[in-house]
């Protein structure tokens, strides 16, 4: 099954990449752009019987490695 783990910085944590991209867009002439945030998506093939099992595995992986919960939140979706 395809599991998607979506990892984003916690609200309130400064996003240097997003900030830099926002600046760059402005200097390219995109004047209508406000806040920019950059997140990471990890797509995994997981051998699981049920969607529920796949989701659990995804959550375990997110906690163990894919997200740093000090600064990041994550969401797990079973895509297919």
């Amino acid at each position, binding site marked *: 099954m395809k599991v998607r783990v979506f990892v984003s910085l916690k609200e309130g944590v400064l996003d*240097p*990449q997003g*900030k830099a991209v926002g600046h760059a867009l402005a200097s390219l002439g995109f004047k209508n752009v406000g806040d920019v945030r950059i997140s990471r998506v990890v797509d995994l093939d997981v051998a699981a019987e049920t969607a529920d099992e796949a989701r659990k595995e995804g959550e375990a992986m997110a906690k163990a490695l894919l997200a740093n919960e000090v*600064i990041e939140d994550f969401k797990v979706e079973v895509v297919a």
Partner: protein
Amino acid sequence: MKAGVVVFPGTNRERDMAHALTLASGQAPKMLWHQEESVDGLDLVIIPGGFSFGDYLRSGAMAAHSPIMTAVRRFAEKGGYILGVCNGFQILTEAQLLPGALLRNAGMRFLSQDCHLKVEGRDSIYTKGWSAGDVFRTPMAHGDGNYTASPEMLDRLEGEGRVAFRYCREDGHVQADDPHINLNGSARAIAGVLSENRRICGMMPHPENLTDPAIGGTDGLPLFKAIVEAFGV
């Protein structure tokens, strides 16, 4: 002193660290491969710089889960001394042996240049080679050195004297919002922090690269001298 230097796949400043320790103590440290499961018998574990596992997910994230880190965590619980430099600092925060995290440098570029650090942390073997307020020069070389932690944690670190080093100007002036002084944008210009028991220290710059008179100077040597003094040669 019995020191061990941890080597992960992708670590690249282990030789530099060994060189500095050898200069300070006359004795080469033990190299520890990341799959070893014990660090028993050591006085000090050092996690050096580099790009462990390519730093491909988050800097230090994958290394923080290597087998040896279980042993390092046990060592810490028993009051062991641990120094993490650069990638080592990132690994220690990912392993939650030190608070906070290191984000991408504010300017989004890798920074390789000399910087100045102000010594602040109290009562640690890592800082006592200097007096509080001293300033020293040291190279830095990192892409993710932008220290962050919650405001409460930052207050706590400052209140407990656990900010070991801060980025400053040559004359000691600290100004967190000046990108020419606080080059990577770290919260409150923090360059290094200490654990609660002051036995674990993480820092971004590389004092080990300025310990040899033949290679640019010895400004970073006091750190290593003090460590050696703490444990005896």
